[in-house]
């Protein structure tokens, strides 16, 4: 199919070869699991259990009233040990439920075994997806049931599954496409049914041609595969839609505004698996990689597994670690605590050695304009950063600072090593805080 592409973007070293050929494996049950009450974009959940309570695998242990939220579940059976503050990948400490597994994997008795979604109404499927705690697994962890509940005036005509995986190092979506293609297609069909859409497209970067070949065997004429040029941030929703359909999500708008819903391939697998097993979202695929782990892995891990266990599974550190990143190296978050648990949005753990975790001293902007050239949103990052530093937030807003998708391309390319994105983030946060007042 015709690909339209998008302006801007960068080509960081892919580094996918470290882990791309390693099949997804499970890891032994850890001694503790920490299920945080902040797993997703939206309202945090309130614990429904108390310390010393026995929980079943798949039992709901936290929920909230808000629309934009998703419940959390016990990843395995065991005892609630503590409900306390734990380190969140975002750097804060948030309320979490620590579970001590009993190793019996006793499944919550109420879990419905009925696996046929075909007999359910779209509304029932949405409810099931919400109750299963399914959120976008690409990284932002936006609750899926919200995404597939467009207001009636928005006509959705296309669903795109995001298999671009444009972040360097990460290979979990690639592995899912190779290993679970039928679930991806099944998940896409469920989404198409819920939204009454006739057209589904799976977008994949052309560095994953074998995934394209595998998926081709499972699709019919209702689903197309879009082979996209390998360019970061191809996996950004807005740029995926632009590249495949030549539609631009308006500034401040959502994919819904151009008739599209985008979901990650991992999310499609989670949906399909839920309707197969009845189990809620209690595990996910995580790539554990980087030059500083001995044997990079693609793992299927329980939500709440501390990162130390993941690194253990990947053969431990090669040398002294300098940086541990949750997510990819372009948009991921550097963590500082080895107890930080996997959350629903954790797509990868990338470990850099001290030597590779470079910190550069920024110098003056030399106005090369590279940040302007690579900005996929058509912004002028160096000017935005300058305005933020001078506290000229009105000017920054006029220049479109709120459109920034925080992909980091400007920061990556800057020859003056300026932390452009950091300043832009500060500006966005300040502007939004002022608006709320």
């Amino acid at each position, binding site marked *: 199919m015709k690909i339209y592409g998008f302006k801007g973007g960068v080509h960081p070293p892919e580094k996918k070869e470290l882990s791309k050929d390693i099949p997804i494996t499970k890891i032994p049950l850890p001694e503790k699991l920490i299920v945080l009450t902040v797993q997703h974009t939206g309202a945090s959940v309130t614990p429904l259990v108390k310390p010393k309570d026995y929980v079943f695998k798949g039992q709901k242990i936290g929920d909230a009233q808000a629309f934009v939220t998703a419940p959390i579940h016990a990843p395995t059976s065991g005892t609630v040990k503590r409900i306390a503050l734990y380190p969140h990948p975002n750097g804060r400490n948030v309320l979490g439920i620590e579970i001590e597994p009993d190793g019996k994997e006793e499944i919550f008795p109420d879990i419905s075994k009925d696996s046929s979604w075909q007999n359910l109404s779209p509304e029932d499927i949405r409810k099931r997806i919400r109750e299963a705690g399914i959120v976008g697994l690409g990284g932002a962890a936006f609750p899926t049931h919200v995404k597939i509940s467009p207001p009636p005036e928005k006509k959705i005509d296309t669903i795109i599954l995001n298999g671009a995986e444009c972040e360097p190092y990460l290979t979990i979506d690639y592995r899912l496409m190779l290993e679970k293609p039928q679930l991806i297609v099944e998940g896409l069909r469920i989404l198409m049914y819920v939204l009454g859409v006739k057209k589904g497209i799976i977008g994949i970067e052309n560095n994953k041609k074998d995934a394209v070949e595998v998926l081709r065997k499972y699709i019919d004429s209702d689903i197309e595969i879009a082979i996209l040029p390998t360019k970061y941030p191809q996996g950004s929703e807005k740029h995926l839609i632009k590249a495949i359909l030549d539609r631009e999500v308006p500034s401040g708008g959502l994919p819904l505004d151009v008739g599209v819903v985008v979901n990650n391939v991992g999310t499609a697998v989670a949906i399909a698996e839920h309707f197969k097993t009845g189990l809620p979202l209690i595990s996910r695929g995580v790539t554990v990689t980087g030059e500083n782990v001995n044997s990079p892995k693609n793992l299927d891990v329980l939500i709440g597994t501390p990162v130390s266990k993941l690194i253990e599974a990947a053969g431990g550190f090669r040398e002294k670690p300098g940086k541990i990143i949750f997510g990819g190296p372009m948009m991921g978050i550097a963590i500082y605590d080895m107890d930080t648990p996997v959350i629903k949005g954790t797509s990868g753990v*990338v470990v850099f050695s001290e030597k590779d975790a470079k910190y550069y001293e920024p110098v003056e902007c030399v*106005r090369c*304009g590279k940040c*302007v050239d690579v*900005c996929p*949103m*058509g912004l002028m990052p160096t000017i935005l950063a300058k305005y933020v530093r001078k506290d000229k937030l009105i000017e920054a807003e006029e220049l479109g600072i709120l459109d920034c998708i925080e992909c980091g391309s400007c*920061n990556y390319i800057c020859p*003056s090593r300026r932390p452009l994105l950091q300043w832009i983030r500060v500006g966005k946060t300040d502007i939004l805080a002022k608006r709320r007042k």
Partner: protein
Amino acid sequence: MKSEMDKLIVSSSPHIFVKEDVSYAMRQVIYALIPATLAGVYFFGLYSLWVILVSIISAVLWEAFALFLRKKPLNILLDFSAVVTGLLLALTLPPKVPLWIPVIGSGVAILLGKQVFGGLGDNFLNPALVGRAFLLSSYPQIMTSWIEPIHKIGGMVSQASPLTSTATPLAIVKLKLTGYQLPSYWHLFIGDIPGCIGETSALLLLLGGVYLIYKEIVDWRIPLSYILTVFIISLLFGKDPIFQILAGGLFLGAFFMATDWVTTPLTKKGKVIFGIGAGFFTMVIRLFGIYPEGVSYGILVMNALTPLIDRTIKPRKFGEVRK
């Protein structure tokens, strides 16, 4: 694990960066200028090498002096920008200038062209051109004394003794000087003609320019729009367009000065406007000004207009609602 934790670096994303920093880019510019520099030394003799070395060394020393006064770390010198300024200035000097000329020129370039504004990045005029403009207006005699190349390509022996003063092709045409023969396109292209040390070989400057474009340090839009504008205006005014683009400092200016990151617009559109503007002002000076050559001032004028261009020309925002 605890002790390892203490050392983990926490910083805002992204966590990876390109290798190519400012210092890398400046070094590429120096490499790209080497062919034209060597050609200049070959054409005009070893003395011009002294001019070049004095210019570079004094530029670096002036930079060090300024950094010292400003209490800035001296490792800023490693960005190689002072070397580039010194080299570029030398290449725009006539081959036989006394050696104090590059010392003064680079002093003005570094101190008044750059450091008074806050150093690299904060200067709004091209430092080397500030230095050259100062020299041209202060020492017009010295700055317009030319010699014939001592070596010619293709076995042609220059008729005049190398020390005889001569005139640049542009001056011959502009001032309607008699007794001089205009060089052929071929000689204009390879550069064995009278002129500034590094400006005469369009061929080698083009080679260096293409290298910088390939390395994504120079945006092709500026040299192309600049040279094309000179070509078109020449045509419109009945001048020989090929002569106008090959004679004088256009290639040096278009590839190496009008493409200076700091003093040119940020956006692609802005860069095209810059090139067209520089071409326009270059030709205004060549056609109507008192100087035979207008590249330096053409670029300086556009340097001064760059903040205005950046204020006016913005890239199209993704998802911008068309009004």
